[in-house]
């Protein structure tokens, strides 16, 4: 039985076939409409994440399956002190597949050892969120037609942004990915990521604090939020925050075919005026998230012959 706990659980052929399957679903939406008829997805959200939960639920419904579960640990058996192992063992009696979000790191891995059905990690604390990374990869592939030979800019909080770390790690398997790392100097990509992923895989990279200067070279700009509480003092935050906000003015310097991505939710780091720019891809990214989850559910349930 297969699970998806960490993106590195997937071999390169498995990853590529997931992305291909998602593209097939996008192109022939009716093809899989009944593929999961009679199957149940349990969405076990021990902490709330409406966005991710709705994506999983929509994915299963679009496959003709149904959904059970809970959306907040406080209302579940966990609040009464039931262990993760016992909860998933129980749920595994009813459901065919589990999507699980949990505030503790490693909870989905533990669940996968007890559930008796495939488990998908829908986020475990700040640790892993593999379906977000899959959605990002699918978006890059759909927008650019390839997953190599790209100059990808990452902008914002690159120190604590796990989405960024996970995507860079996944991209390191592809050829010709150059990285432009745009962040306040207090929030750079961590050293371990630089050593064990970026430099180890000989990925060319530049680090800069100047988004405007970096923009014209980019094929993709992946935006993330710079949280106020990450700064040591208010003055630095006020001084720097606008430099990492993407607006229509800055977009004038970007290539006509550059794609803007963002894992969402957005606060103010992308001006709403950018939303109507055809280069803005973050809502397409949301939709791609549903399609890749459909592909993942189909694959883990082995319902495609």
């Amino acid at each position, binding site marked *: 039985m297969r699970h998806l706990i960490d993106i590195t659980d997937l071999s390169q052929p498995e990853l590529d076939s997931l992305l291909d399957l998602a593209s097939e679903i996008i192109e022939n939406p009716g093809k899989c409409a009944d593929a999961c008829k009679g199957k149940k997805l349990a969405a076990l959200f021990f902490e709330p994440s409406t966005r991710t939960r709705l994506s999983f639920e929509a994915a299963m419904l679009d496959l003709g399956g149904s959904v059970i579960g809970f959306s907040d640990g406080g209302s579940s058996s966990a609040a009464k002190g039931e262990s*993760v192992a016992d909860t998933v063992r129980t749920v595994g009696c009813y459901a065919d597949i589990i999507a699980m979000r949990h505030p*503790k*790191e490693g*909870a989905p891995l533990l669940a996968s050892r007890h559930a008796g059905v495939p488990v998908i990690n829908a986020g475990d*604390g700040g*640790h892993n969120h593999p379906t977000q990374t899959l959605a990002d990869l699918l978006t890059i592939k759909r927008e650019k037609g390839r997953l190599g030979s790209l100059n990808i800019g990452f902008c914002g909080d690159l120190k604590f942004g796990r989405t960024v770390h996970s995507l860079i790690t996944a991209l390191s398997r592809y050829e010709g990915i150059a990285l432009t790392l745009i962040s306040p100097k207090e929030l750079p990509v961590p050293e371990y990521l630089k050593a064990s992923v970026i430099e180890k895989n000989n990925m060319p990279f530049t680090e800069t604090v100047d988004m405007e200067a970096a923009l014209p070279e980019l094929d993709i700009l992946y935006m993330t939020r710079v949280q106020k509480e990450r700064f040591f003092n208010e003055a630095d935050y006020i001084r720097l925050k606008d430099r990492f906000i993407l607006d229509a003015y800055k977009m004038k310097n970007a290539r006509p075919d550059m794609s803007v991505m963002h894992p969402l939710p957005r606060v103010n780091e992308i001006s709403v005026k950018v939303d109507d720019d055809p280069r803005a891809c973050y809502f397409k990214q949301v939709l791609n998230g549903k399609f890749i989850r459909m592909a993942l559910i189909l694959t883990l349930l082995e319902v495609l012959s």
Partner: protein
Amino acid sequence: MNVDGVNSGIVLDHIQAGKSMAIYRYLHLDKLECCVAIIKNVKSGKLGRKDIIKIDAELPMNLDVLGYIDPNITVNVIKNGEIAEKKRLDLPRELVNILHCKNPRCITSAEQEIDHIFRLDDLEKQIYRCVYCETKSKE
């Protein structure tokens, strides 16, 4: 080496002096029905002093953990009163309930009776990581 008292079994030799009781616990030797002898502070040319554990039974015992605790330990397999095999110890790939994860955000801090499992990540630097949260065994 004196293997008196062991006919068919295992002798763990060259244990760092004072470590024998820890090994006794790690290997759960208290659960055995057979003869187990712990000899402490034996004079040894190599170490000055050493401990020895003698187990008088042929056990399908997993001794991998010894490689982590002390790779200098010699494992002698005794058959018919003679040393039949000297085993080299490798670092085990996985350690179960030997190391404990101290990350408060890790599921091991919340789930009752969960096994603490660490996997070998870097053989050269002897770094293990918690399988749940990937926290390193040592910084």
